């Protein structure tokens, strides 16, 4: 019935606030491409973002978009999905939004395994507040609030997700659009909570983790000899070893979703007739007689 959509059908008229060369452009265009290739309609996509440079992405994707409070994209997205199972629900935010202020929600959203996708745009710095250390900044990273170098150990978000029981883990690099499109498509199609972490360089504040640095320090992790994305221990090793940063779909598992475990009906809650079941309501008062 509907004509095939193109990435342009997912574009908004809002001009971007991102700096020229920002890694987030790559994420946005891969996302549009993936949704178009999957045949999704903008009306059926709910896109929930956090706060920060990356959080602005919801303004640029033609969809039902929600730009909420810092760190809380995941609980909002979880509830949107539970309220209407027909929707394709995608949450996105940065490393600060997801791994610092929203870290509590991150592990619990992973545990809950609601059928949705979470894109973490990792630039290893706080961009919108002009360059402080983030949870993923390297130890020793010099920034405005850590002039003598970041004293903290960087957080390994994907290893954390794996430990929390993630059922889909992928990592992309915003300068490698083809791989990113493929993994976002797979993430959206995954039944359960899918996390896609994208290395998304900040060209303004992060002078260490640049495009060139990522080209040098990443590799396709799935091409390693004997690698299987269904092996949890192998995934943990790939995610935590000291070598190059592995890209690709690194882990995948089939496990019942929150919706399945709670027996949530297929009919979206948002479509229920609230005036139905009046007789049932009155009968419930017998328990109090």
């Amino acid at each position, binding site marked *: 019935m509907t004509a095939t959509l193109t990435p342009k059908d997912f574009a*908004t008229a*809002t001009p971007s606030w991102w700096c020229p060369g920002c890694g987030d452009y790559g994420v946005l265009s891969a996302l549009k491409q993936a949704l178009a290739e999957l045949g999704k*309609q*903008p*009306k*059926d*996509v*709910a896109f*929930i973002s956090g*706060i920060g440079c990356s959080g602005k992405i*919801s*303004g640029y994707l*033609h*969809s*039902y*978009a*929600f*730009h*909420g*409070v810092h*760190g*809380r994209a*995941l*609980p*909002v*997205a*979880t*509830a*949107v999905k*539970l*309220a*209407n199972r*027909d*929707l394709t629900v995608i949450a996105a935010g940065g490393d600060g939004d997801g791994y610092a202020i929203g870290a*509590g*929600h991150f592990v*619990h959203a992973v545990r*809950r395994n609601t059928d949705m996708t979470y894109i973490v745009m990792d630039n290893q710095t706080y961009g919108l507040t002009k360059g402080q250390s983030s949870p993923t900044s390297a130890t020793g990273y010099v920034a405005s609030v850590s002039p003598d170098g970041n004293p903290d150990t960087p957080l390994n978000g994907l290893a954390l997700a794996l430990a929390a029981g993630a059922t889909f883990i992928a990592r992309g690099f915003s300068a490698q659009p083809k791989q990113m499109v493929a993994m976002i498509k797979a993430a959206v199609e995954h039944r359960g909570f899918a996390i896609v972490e994208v290395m998304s360089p900040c060209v303004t504040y992060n002078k260490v983790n640049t495009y060139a640095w990522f080209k040098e320090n990443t590799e396709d992790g799935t091409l390693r000899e004997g690698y299987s994305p269904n092996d949890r221990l192998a995934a943990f090793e790939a995610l935590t070893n000291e070598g190059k940063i592995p890209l690709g779909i690194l882990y995948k598992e089939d496990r019942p979703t929150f919706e399945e475990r*709670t*027996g*949530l*009906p297929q*009919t*979206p*809650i*948002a*479509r*229920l007739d*609230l*005036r139905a*079941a*009046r007789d*049932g*309501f*009155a009968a*419930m*008062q017998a328990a*109090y*007689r």
Partner: protein
Amino acid sequence: MLRVILNSVEVMFGGQAGDGSLTTGDLIAGVFKRMGLEVYTYKDFPSRIRGGHTNYVIRASEHPNYGMADAVDGLVAFDLEAVEAHIEEMRPGGFIVFDSTSESIPDELRRDDVTWYEIPLAKIAKEQLGLELVRNTISLGVLAALIGMDPEIVRHDVRGVYERKGEKVVDLNMRAIAAGEDYVREHFAGRPSGYGLVAGSDGDRLIMMGNDAIAYGALVAGCRFMAGYPITPATDVLEWMSKQLPKFGGVVVQAEDELAAITMTLGAAFAGVRAMTATSGPGQALMTEAIGLAGVLEIPVVVVECARTGPSTGMPTKTEQSNLNHLIYSGHGEIPRVVLAPGTVHDSFEITTTAFNLAEKYQLPVFVLTEQALCQSKATLKPLDVDAVEIDRGKLIDSGEVVFGEYKRFAFTEDGVSPRVIPGVPGGMHLAPGSEHNDAGVITENARNRARMMEKRMGKLVSMRDDLPKAVLHGIADADIAIVGYGANRGPIAEAVQRLAAGGVLTRFLQLRTLWPFPEDDIRDFVRGAQHVFVVENNYTGQLMQLIRAVVGPLDALHGVRKYDGRPFRPIEVIEAVLRETDAALRDVHDDAAEVL
């Protein structure tokens, strides 16, 4: 002459948490109800699971009272600590049943104006019935014999509680009741309690806790999503909903914290589901930022606050009205919001159903503010009329389609309310941003737009005026003495008003049900011509009184009646405050426990 007080008794069960006094208290409340009496219960328990003094008050009377009496008529004390804690609350002429198995009453506690029934309850339980646990049921038999609870109803209700545990357990409890009754007959035949109950007809009534009525009201009003984080005294609502919502196609999520609970509630409401959360002060504090988001995104959410004693952890299981300012003012920036406060269990149902309509009709957060003394108290009430509950979803567009480009989610309208699409509706795609935005949802810092958006959102507080729950006037409309209060204080204040009138002191009482937007006109009209205005509330700083003063200006005759010890008012405290400040003399301060044969 034998003095017998009929059909009016306040019984207190006191012991250690976890020893079963709550179950027995519920049983007694049920029996009183089935005997046709009106019941109010109050739980005073410690914030721990085992151990620590706990008590359960059950008040029975011929007319509904919605609160405790001035004093305790009958105390069933399972230990000395219970006697020590409550001996001063005993009404002269009252009685105490004391478990004398391992403790005895020291002389200094032995008030001679109460009747003592010292019974080795635990010993009887162990020796005659082989199980110390049934001491509760023995005490029920004792109490039944002392005040004349209908033996058939007692047995029927005890059976109801223990039936699922099997006939053996039922039989044991039946023998325990008899053991209690027999003990009274054999040992205290010549020592009546002075209290009696005459069984009437139960009729078609319910006995329900405030939190049950809130949860039930939410279900009937169409709430199909709840997210919450366990917190006393609001957990009951989350538990109730998790049992019931799935049966009606809905879902409950136990969130990882209150930040998640409220943002989940926003998410579900954004997607078109009537959604709520329930919490208490500490959780409410965490929800503050997202409440602001609900205001600016014009998302309808219902937030139940079951207030307890603060600040910080405070006294988690005790009552207070110290969160009013928090609900009205919390948050950075300014948003329109509604705060409603039910005064009875029945009202808890009604206010909750209204809250959902207001939230959707005006697309903003609505708080249902209740307190531990109401939300965890049971009361008898008439059946709740589910057919009378209207569901008004306001300007919701959840089917059909809109034209993209023409449709504006935050369109400027006369009443400030914009048509609201939900995800899935063709053509309605837009951004809902917590940043300031234009009518289409595009983020902008344009000065003129900002001012118009503020006026649009805040203007909803004016357009909604006629839809807000009305205050209730009690007492004599043109009396010189005026009293204002809300929530659980509706009970003790209304009772004080009646008793003052019976003693010749006329008062009027305005029970507020909408606390925000503040009912300025109602307050102005109400205090007009009053010689004295009393504001009764459970907090230290007089939060309600400050709101009233802002409306009526400085008034010499504005008196704060405040209590902040974690316990609800008893009517006599209101009566005494009124008499003290007005120099009025009462012909006869009596409460309804004065019917003498």
